[in-house]
């Protein structure tokens, strides 16, 4: 899970290192640290933005430990669904209940439909759609694609998947 945090901390030596410690200890990976020191500022605090990759479920513990250090967390943004894959569907996409097709993915809790582009050349003709799925990781994507494949088979839709990389 990728998380971005904006922190407000005392501008004292060693403070930033102490904040980063709990992240490494829980198996997290620090992707970026962005210092925002305003030279005009009169205040004795410093804003720092950090981007981390955390194991699932570890965020609350990390937040608690950072707070204990007297650091103020101004904002937390979770970028949960980093994996993106587009597939193409062909068939009677509207008449086989497109909202149900999307729902089936959204209801999984691990995957979402983030984009849908539909082309309908004529009434009663087969339509074509590009559907973009988002998940947190590769395994979830495989499961989401497998689910979509199953739904499509039941609705007699042809699914065109991307050729995945082997490496």
């Amino acid at each position, binding site marked *: 899970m990728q998380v971005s945090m904006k922190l407000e901390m005392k501008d004292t030596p060693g403070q930033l290192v102490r904040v980063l410690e709990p992240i490494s200890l829980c198996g997290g990976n620090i992707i970026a640290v962005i210092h925002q020191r305003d030279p005009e500022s009169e205040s004795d605090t410093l804003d720092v933005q950090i981007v981390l990759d955390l194991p699932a479920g570890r965020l609350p513990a990390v937040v608690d430990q950072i707070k204990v250090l007297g650091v103020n967390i101004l904002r937390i943004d979770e970028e949960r669904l980093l994996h993106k894959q*587009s*597939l*193409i569907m*062909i*068939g009677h996409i509207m008449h086989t209940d497109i909202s149900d097709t999307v729902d089936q993915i959204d209801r999984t809790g691990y995957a979402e439909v983030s984009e849908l*582009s539909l*082309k309908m*050349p004529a009434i009663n003709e*087969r*339509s*074509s*759609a*590009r559907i973009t799925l988002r998940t947190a990781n590769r395994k979830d994507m495989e499961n989401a694609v497998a689910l979509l494949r199953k739904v499509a088979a039941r609705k007699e839709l*042809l699914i*065109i*998947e*991307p*050729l995945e990389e*082997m*490496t």
Partner: protein
Amino acid sequence: MKTMRVALLGFGSVGQGVVRVLGEKDLPLTLSAIADSKGGVIDDGGISITEAFSRKEKTGSCGKPKVTAMDIVRSNAYDILVEVTPTNMATGEPALTHIRTALELGRHVVTSNKGPVALAHRELIALATKKGVELRYEATVCGAIPIIKTLRDGLLGNEVKALFGVMNGTCNYILTRMEDEGLTYDQALGEAQEMGYAEKDPTYDVKGLDTAIKLIILANTVWGMDAKLGDVDVTGIDLITPQAIQLALDEEAAIRLIGEAIPSRNLLRVSPRIIPRNHPLLVEGTLNAVTVVTDLAGELTFIGKGAGSIETASAVIGDLLSIREQYAGRP
């Protein structure tokens, strides 16, 4: 230079291509017998290629009605049988019987016939091994691309982890034309038939069966599988819409029919796939392309002509010369 005697069965596009090359190039191979479905000729000293062509033009057969293909197979007039007759894909006949009989008699066999190789790979290889002869079939898969020789010799020591490929020129032509000109599937198919790239009954190509059979031949060769057509998950290209191709184009991608074998996932699949524009497998027109994924050499992609008289003959001639190199002069 010690030559070997070649008997050729089948005087269609591939057979004529082989005979032309034998006539034009000074190769250590002697064409000692030739037959099509209507007749044959045997001449141990080497048959006249110009006569065979002119007979074909005048009588419709390259040979004489008294001599049949089976007469040639059973004769002592050859060292290597080239089997390039038209085959029934369900039974592999008559090629299967020709090949089996020649191997039984201890003769080498080179074929472009997918049927017998896909249907009876394990049996035929075992028979050839028992008799101490070769069965070579480079021309069955991806025409001029020497993919089987590469997999068997060129990549020795590698573990082949996966194979992907565009293995059917007809489908690739149709998809390319739909993309370039915005044609419907039916329009592009009609054009392919006019150009001679698609059969009158295109089912075998467009439903993905031809690709599936080539995939089986490759998988059985590389991994010693005993896969059959029923083991392959097959989807063709006949339901693809111009809108779907446009949707792929919008994302800098294209749709191609891909054959895919990944033994670690127990996967043998033929299906239309979305391929990024810059991917090496994305070839145009009737070209074929195969990507091989290996542990030592990494990924390798081979691109070339998948069909054509002389192009396919190239694969047959390569097999013939390879056998000659290995066996000529042996007792």
